[in-house]
């Protein structure tokens, strides 16, 4: 009797397993599909079961195919010879996907001009990730910008209006329909890069095309300090927002305001909750578009602190864009396209509904304000393709504003794969796996931990594939963090000679030991014009980085109360030993002395294996 009972139980379990697993018969798939379509994006057991697979290798995870009513076992459903995940036509195709070279570069023109041809293979290498991750289970990405056109055909399905915020009205919405026309041009472009919906027969797709996106139009509002606090840290008590993309800044000033990093610290400690445990919200920040004006990205503390992920911009040829501001605080590069958007390859994305223009209807705006206007109605505009008849898209987005959402999109996929990574581990994995582009550029240095860094590129191009391969398998989280601080009073002030490229050297011995994740030196000087100073720092291991570009765009900023210069270039190195500062005044007319140096580092105590 007992034997029969065991056999019956065994058979029952086998039957349950068989019916629960993916069936290869068409009938059972369509039956499953019909059930799941009733609760799209819900927590269906079967969807979760299938979430990590792509049975037909068509670059669409099975769970998403089921949600869309596609067949996860047929890689070319319309039988046109193009695999489903790369379609640009039909009900599931994204019309301009082949123009989105930053996702998949096939070497075609991205814009209208013949010179907008891209370099085949120079892209974010996302296709392998798309077998399993498209952002569906990633959480919510936040975009603080000018607002988002929440009625846009390619964005509306991915917007989380409950977590969005209208900074003008202080309520949870992105903006009125009128505002979307006037103010949302920039935010809508950034939004499309991250989260335009894929496989809907429309326009473009985002890098994480099924992630949820929450917007804020803070840039188009009064930009108050308290409203930024609300948007960054207070509007998400459940910690659903995984990261925030910030494509804004001040290109010409130096700002030692510690307010931003205090908010980021709160986000790192208490937000992005997984299973009730805070893993730390990620804060992404555009480096700036001021290279031609000698802007250094690290002149503002909001881009130069231990929490932030500061992003530089690459063109399709994998070199830095002509506008991309350099800096030792830059962690990583994304794709932001060329400066000349009418002639060279820029970024294809969404534009506010009906707002773009075909090339023959575009004129350069001679009156200031926006760069381009539509000849037919004199409205600010951006260029689109000849077959974008409803004028909802553009191929002309560029800037570190564009590069930052490309990194945001990739990190959404990484966090979908490895949601329990804390914010420090994400930053470390970015550094570890970033791709060294433009390898002959002299700005690259390789530190003693084997990590390559450049003031132009950070650690290189974001590499989501490498990060996921690491975090899913062998990655050991970083040990508990710690900070150290040491002060060095300079008894007899060291005079910095005016207009002298050699400058002065000052060495100091740090006795406390820490493995660096972030370091900074706060320099106090009575020099009357801080922007004249070019500053280099060499670590005990011999790694040198340029902490600050001399004769920079910040005009007059003061070191009299101390100015903090930060860097990620020494990540993985030890703090202990002799550090050497070199400070050169490279412009005539102002003088001063080095008076005090404070060394600070954030990291951990155990050497990683």
């Amino acid at each position, binding site marked *: 009797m007992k034997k029969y009972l065991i056999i019956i139980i065994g058979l029952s379990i086998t039957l349950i397993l068989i019916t629960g697993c993916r069936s290869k018969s068409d009938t059972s798939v369509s039956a499953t599909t019909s059930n799941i379509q009733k609760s799209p994006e819900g927590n269906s057991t079967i969807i979760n079961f299938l979430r990590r697979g792509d049975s037909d290798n068509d670059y669409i995870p099975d769970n998403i195919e089921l949600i869309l009513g596609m067949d996860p076992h047929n890689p070319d459903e319309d039988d046109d010879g193009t695999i489903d995940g790369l379609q640009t036509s039909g009900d599931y195709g994204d019309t301009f996907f082949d123009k989105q070279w930053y996702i998949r570069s096939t070497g075609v023109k991205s814009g209208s001009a013949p010179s907008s041809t891209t370099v085949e293979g120079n892209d974010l290498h996302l296709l392998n990730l798309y077998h399993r991750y498209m952002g569906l289970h990633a959480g919510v990405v936040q975009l603080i910008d000018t607002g988002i056109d929440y009625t846009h055909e390619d964005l509306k399905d991915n917007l989380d209006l409950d977590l969005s915020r209208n900074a003008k009205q202080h309520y949870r919405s992105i903006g009125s329909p009128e505002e979307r026309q006037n103010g949302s041009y920039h935010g809508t472009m950034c939004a499309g890069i991250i989260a335009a919906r894929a496989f809907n027969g429309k326009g473009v797709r985002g890098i994480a095309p099924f992630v949820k996106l929450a917007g804020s139009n803070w840039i188009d509002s009064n930009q108050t*300090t308290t409203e930024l606090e609300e948007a960054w*840290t207070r509007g998400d008590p459940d910690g659903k927002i995984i990261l925030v993309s910030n494509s*804004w800044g001040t290109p010409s000033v130096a700002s030692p305001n510690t307010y931003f990093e205090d908010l980021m610290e709160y986000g790192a400690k208490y937000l992005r909750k997984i299973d009730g445990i805070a893993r730390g919200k990620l804060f992404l920040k555009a480096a700036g578009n001021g290279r031609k004006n000698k802007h250094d990205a690290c002149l503002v503390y909001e881009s130069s602190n231990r929490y932030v992920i500061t992003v530089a911009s690459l063109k399709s040829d994998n070199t830095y864009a002509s506008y991309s501001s350099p800096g030792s605080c830059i962690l990583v590069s994304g794709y932001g396209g060329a400066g000349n958007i009418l002639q060279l390859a820029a970024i294809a994305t969404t534009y506010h509904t009906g707002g773009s223009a075909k090339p023959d209807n575009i004129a350069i705006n001679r009156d200031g304000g926006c760069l381009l206007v539509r000849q037919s109605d004199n409205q600010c505009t951006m260029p689109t393709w000849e077959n974008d008849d409803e004028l909802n898209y553009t191929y002309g987005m560029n800037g570190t504003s564009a590069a930052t959402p490309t990194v945001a999109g990739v990190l959404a996929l990484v966090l979908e794969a490895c949601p329990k990574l804390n914010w420090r581990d994400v930053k470390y994995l970015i550094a570890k796996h970033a791709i060294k582009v433009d390898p002959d550029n002299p700005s690259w240095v390789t530190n003693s931990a084997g990590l390559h860094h450049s003031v132009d590129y950070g650690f290189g191009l974001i590499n989501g594939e490498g990060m996921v391969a690491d975090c899913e398998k062998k990655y050991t989280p970083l040990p508990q963090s710690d900070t150290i601080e040491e002060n060095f009073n300079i008894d007899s002030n060291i005079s910095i000679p005016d207009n002298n490229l050699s400058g002065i050297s000052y060495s100091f011995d740090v006795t406390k030991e820490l493995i660096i994740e972030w370091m900074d030196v706060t320099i106090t000087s009575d020099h009357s014009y801080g922007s004249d100073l070019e500053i280099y720092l060499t670590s005990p291991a011999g790694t040198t980085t340029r902490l600050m570009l001399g004769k920079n765009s910040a005009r007059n900023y003061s070191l009299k109360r101390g100015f903090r210069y930060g860097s990620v270039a020494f990540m993985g190195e030890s703090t202990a030993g002799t550090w050497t500062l070199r400070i050169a005044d490279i412009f005539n007319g102002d003088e001063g002395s080095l008076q005090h140096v404070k060394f600070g580092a954030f990291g951990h105590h155990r050497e990683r294996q």
Partner: protein
Amino acid sequence: MKIIILITIVAIFGNILYANKKKVLLIDNADIVKSRGIKISTIRNGIIAEKMVYPAKKVDLLQHTQSTSIEKPTEYLFSDGTKFNSKSHIMIKFNKGKEANIKELEQNYHLKLIRKMTSGDFLFKIIRGDTLQAINAILKEESDKIERISPNISFNMKPL
């Protein structure tokens, strides 16, 4: 009784006339100050310094006084384009380990605590007086307790 009513009416008219005159004085004052700027104190790394701010244009105030009886706050502009106004909230972050007597601050500088912010700053509403003057006064007397103090600034960030 008639005398009391008469005195009351005279007092009301007197107040209205005084208030109107005060507005004009304020406008004139703002215009004069604009030409030379006003200093606002700041503190960083324990050192107090002064920055220049410039009150809003006279025309803005005139437009406002004509359209409403409520006095519009004066707007102060920094040279980098950030701004605040004379009624902006005040944010104070106190030094670690330094006890802040909130009640005393509220009483001495006509403030009302709204809440503690996630940045660690205490956010105060200004009940009476001018935000700029209050900050200057607070820093003059309480700087040893304060890590940073600022009005609720409107930044001048641009899309990149």
